[in-house]
């Protein structure tokens, strides 16, 4: 049964539902039409990142640093989402270093070997800065992320997880940005 047939059937049964369905299908078609065909990387928008740095110790955060961290954390999640879906780990180096980069690269390599990929629908992050070293060389943050994670084997959807996720993040400054050095998903229990 083609999409056109479905749409026509819906139109006859329930006009309001048909309108909505038509809208959804049109939106999907438009999204497909806008996606790049030559570069096989999914188009992912920057997720929303809200940073709360109240009561940060032992050093308070400067406003510019806070803005930079939020921006680069959003870029990191965009790159991570693209890499997990496309199986291309090259872009991770822009925002990840150290353990975080090594682990994600390994995961993507093994994911490709297994013929799998992961799609993340990112609905935003609430970052809470919990430690900022006095010399400014490291910042630890807790991230409450709203993610829908779909796991595929080829084109077969294996599983969808749609629960809040909590991450422990370690970011360190580089020449012109803050890098994600460690990204570890943790349980929701208090520490």
């Amino acid at each position, binding site marked *: *049964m083609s999409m056109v047939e*479905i749409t026509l*059937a*819906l139109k*006859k*049964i329930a006009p309001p539902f048909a309108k909505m369905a038509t809208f959804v299908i049109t939106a999907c078609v438009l999204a497909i039409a806008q996606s790049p065909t030559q570069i096989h990387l999914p188009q992912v928008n920057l997720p929303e990142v809200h940073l709360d740095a109240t009561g940060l110790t*032992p050093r308070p955060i400067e406003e510019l640093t806070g803005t930079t961290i939020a921006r680069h954390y959003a870029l990191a999640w965009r790159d991570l989402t693209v890499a997990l879906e496309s199986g291309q780990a090259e872009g991770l180096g822009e925002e990840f270093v150290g*353990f975080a980069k*090594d*682990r*994600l690269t*390994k*995961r993507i390599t*093994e*994911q490709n*070997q*297994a*013929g*799998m990929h*992961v799609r993340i629908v990112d609905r935003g992050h609430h970052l809470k800065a*919990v*430690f900022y*070293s*006095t*010399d400014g*060389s*490291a910042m*630890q943050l*807790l991230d409450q992320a709203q993610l829908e994670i779909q*796991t595929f*084997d080829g084109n077969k*959807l*294996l*599983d*969808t*997880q749609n629960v809040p*996720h909590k991450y*422990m993040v*370690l970011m360190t400054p580089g020449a012109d940005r803050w890098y994600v050095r*460690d*990204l*570890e*998903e*943790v*349980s929701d229990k208090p*520490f």
Partner: protein
Amino acid sequence: MKRTAHSHFARCKRLTGLILLCVLPVWASAAELHVPAVVEAGQAFSIPLKDAGSGQATFYLVGPDHVMKRTVAFGSDLQIQSSDLRTAGRYQVILCDSSSCTSAIFEVKAAQPAHLSFFLHPSRVPVSTRDSIDATAFVFDQYFNLILTPAAVDFRITPASGAGFSREVSTRRGVAWMRMDSTPHEGRVQVTAALGSMEEARVIQQVAAEACGLRMKAVASGSMVTLETDPVRDCSGNALPDGTVVSFTKVDKAGKSTVDTPIKKGIARVQFSLDGRALISVACGVVLGNEVAVNGKL
């Protein structure tokens, strides 16, 4: 009219079937997966599949740095190796038979402390300065997972002279840090972070603080005057290092002139030409020393 309604009903059935066809593989269970809620990193465990029936299924393990896919046979337990669980975080296991998939989540927590990552800041610090030294230690397990449960890190301070001391700090979310004053004597101070049998040492160099009681004397010789400081020391008696700049300023009828000169062998020396009466002052950093008036009168 009846025919149209019947036709709509048939289409509805087809649509419902289509929707169910899409939804069922996700909701239905191939076999229930029993996994522990929390596993320590590097610890193997098994998933019972003995009572799950017969035949084969595809098993998937998706972790923070590890993805595995393999065919498993029902009727025997599924072994998850220790090497599959080295990185802390959330793991997903999925089991799919020919018709459906089932999944479960578990968490891998860091193992026992095995590595300390230790930062001491700054590398040089003036003596007797309040809250001037910061020590930060991150505690990791053998797989370099940050250990989030509290652990006691002992910071041991060993100055070049005088008695050493230590301070115990509990980690919070894997990080222990402390701030302390520099000690009164210049020289090397070793700070060691210790946890169990692990030790990481770093060295900080304490240097003299600002000059204290800065004094100079003048020796006139014809139209020249030579100015020389006493040995330049801080308030704790530590000699300021050679190279520290001392400024001599002369004010006479020609105006004001300043000469900056580095300390050599503990003292600073400079020579001015004189043209009548002059007032000369000495300073080192923010510290002002004495003043001398010259023109035969000191």
